[in-house]
């Protein structure tokens, strides 16, 4: 028993356990659930029933079994590779996106720490800079898949993806500058704690969305563009270049791309919640001074999850409501409108802090 506690208190073991917890109990399940959620919700928008046929015996679970059916199906599909493709790059490309999507959960806190124990895989000093690094890694997935597939559609998709993701990376960083200034840190835990203070006594929490409304809109737009989902899904371009950069993939590798997309959706929602909606902090909970510690933690995880699910839903709603941009329109929007706006946001925030604070 003592040995066990000793092993558990080694930081590395803790980190590994946290990673397993976060990935296996939060990111991946939510990502897979999203595949069903998207199909069901889009069906509701479009006056359809949605998936409801997969069954065991007579049990369908309202379509829940489709997740298992999809997974099984893609495992048993042949893993095809087009003639003339670059074998090595073709085989590894699908996993860049998945790794990047999952890795960004590393810096997201789920509840307030108990003593030294943090409900966060790694509370590192660079914090959000890590996110920028990781999301730019996911560009490789699209680019390598597009370049190695030996297909013109995939090539077009790959070039679109690289151009789009690199340019949106630029002002995704700029959009957060204001946030760094307001909370005075790039460390995620400090930004989250900064959002637990209030204006006017205990009236309005200092959430990122209230201190940086423009920054929120810009950052969310940039993140959605990073996931390459509608309305920014020109790299996939299902109507003109069929499926874009992952056109030639099949079976589990194709699923890896899809799963990466959904995990990215979840991580977008988690990041938005953490940076702009108070993270795990339940607003006005400090007024209830006698709240037991364990209940506070549970409420915090609950609040966090509710916001994450809300933003996942919001992205689905967005995708099925609006048409998509053409590739050059995406770029024009990024460089001509959002980049100047994020610069303005940065300068204005700096000026306000300098003058009033």
């Amino acid at each position, binding site marked *: 028993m003592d040995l066990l506690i000793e092993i558990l208190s080694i930081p590395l073991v803790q980190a590994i356990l946290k990673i397993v917890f976060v990935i296996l109990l939060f990111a991946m399940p939510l990502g897979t659930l999203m595949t069903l959620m998207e199909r069901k919700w889009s069906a509701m928008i*479009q006056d*359809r029933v949605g998936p409801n046929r997969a069954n065991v015996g007579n049990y369908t679970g309202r379509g829940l079994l489709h997740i298992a059916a999809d997974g099984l199906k893609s495992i048993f599909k042949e893993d095809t590779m087009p003639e003339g493709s670059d074998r090595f790059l073709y085989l590894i490309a699908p996993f860049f996106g998945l790794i990047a999507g999952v890795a960004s959960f590393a810096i997201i806190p789920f509840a307030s720490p108990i003593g030294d124990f943090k409900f966060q895989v790694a509370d590192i000093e660079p914090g959000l800079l890590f996110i920028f690094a990781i999301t730019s890694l996911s560009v490789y997935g699209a680019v390598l898949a597009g370049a190695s597939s030996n297909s013109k559609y995939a090539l077009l998709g790959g070039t679109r993806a690289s151009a789009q993701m690199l340019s949106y990376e630029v002002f995704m960083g700029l959009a957060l500058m204001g946030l760094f200034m307001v909370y005075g840190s790039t460390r995620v835990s400090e930004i989250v704690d900064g959002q637990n203070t209030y204006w006017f006594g205990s009236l309005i929490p200092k959430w990122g969305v209230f201190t940086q409304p423009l920054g929120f809109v810009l950052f969310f737009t940039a993140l959605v563009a990073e996931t390459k989902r509608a309305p920014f899904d020109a790299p996939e371009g299902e109507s*003109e270049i069929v499926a874009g950069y992952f056109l030639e993939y099949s079976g589990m590798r194709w699923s890896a791309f899809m799963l990466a997309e959904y995990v990215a959706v979840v991580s977008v929602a988690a990041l938005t919640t953490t940076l702009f909606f108070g993270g795990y902090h339940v607003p006005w909970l400090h007024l209830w001074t006698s709240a037991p510690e364990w209940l506070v933690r549970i409420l915090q995880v609950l609040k966090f999850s509710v916001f994450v699910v809300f933003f996942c839903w919001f992205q689905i709603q967005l995708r099925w409501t609006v*048409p*998509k941009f053409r*590739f050059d329109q995406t770029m024009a929007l990024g460089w001509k409108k959002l980049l100047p706006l994020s610069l303005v946001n940065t300068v204005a925030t700096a000026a306000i802090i300098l003058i009033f604070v």
Partner: protein
Amino acid sequence: MDNAPLDIQQHEANLQPTNDFSSSVMAIEIGPSHPAMHGIVRFTTYVDGELIVDMIPEIGYLHRGFEKESENSKWIQVIPYTDRLNYVSPLLNNIGYSMAVEKLYGVEAPRRAEFTRVIMGEISRITDHLTCLGASAMEVGAFTFFLWFIKAREYLWELVEQVTGARLTTNWTRFGGNATDLPDGFLDDLQERLDKVKEVMVECDRLLTKNKIFIDRVKDIGPISKEDALSFGFTGPMLRASGVPYDVRRSDPYSVYDELDFEVPVGTVGDCFDRYLVRMEEVRQSISIIEQASDKMPVGPIMGSERGVHYPDKKEVYGNIEGLIDHFKMVMEGHRPPAGEAYHAVEGGNGEVGFYVVSDGSGDPVRVRLRPPCFNFVEAMPKMTIGHYVADIVPIFGSINMIGGELDR
């Protein structure tokens, strides 16, 4: 942009896999099997980056030999073939062909038959336009609207089923009348369903027509000037979007269209957005035409009774020898329109659907020729797409509403 076609050897050479990257022009095949090519057609597109520098359309993948097949059939046996021409508005083809043969005979259908033809024809036009509108919305990523329009189309196809017994393969008109009359209570049901269609139209109008992204995607995309449109031989919504108010129903009124009040919407620049707006307005006009026609619906027969044109009444067939012989001759030898030729055009979903029929007085047609409206549109695809981006091919192609069955015959 230079619109001269590339020479064919260059074309072949471009299709070969090459390691020569000194040229920035890449040949990319769009179709024949491609999600946006509803119907089957192939566009060999030459792109410089994403910019289209040349395009060669290739048609004929759905050629079934409709015209030749017709020559080996009896006159009446051609009607089911016409269902398969423009398969989203089969009734308009039925009507066009039957009216061409009626012109040969020199007969007219009874008034009630004409009014029901107008109603059914306009229902078909609405289904055609709804399909096209939905498809063009889907092409720019608004998949939801596609299903909403399809839902509205479903209401109407159920009506078509009530009257003709089939949703697509209607085979409904006959020479000098229609096969079936409207069923009891049809007009009330019609009004109810039209109201539902109107609701869908309002919903889509609110959410799509004013959508900034949608407008960005279709405005100034694939414009074609009035002169070009006329010289390519455009008809229908495509021509009207370019600003020419040509509508066969108005400029050469057939059936009872001259008694009905409707407007011919026209666009200004002939881009994809104009075509979208023209089609939206035409759906509304068609609804108003249907409402007027059902108000004016006369009572009476739906089939004439002239000898040699119509099958004799069953009472005649079983009751006297003349009727029996008449019936026998018509069944064995088929309809025998007098020798001569006739051309009759109706306003189809895509434009002027013209049937040119030649008879030598026997039971088999000598020639049945269809003037497909979308043939001209596909021919003009290079003109409309060159200078735009690859992603623009899809909305442009969606807006011309190519129907393979009609194009390739």
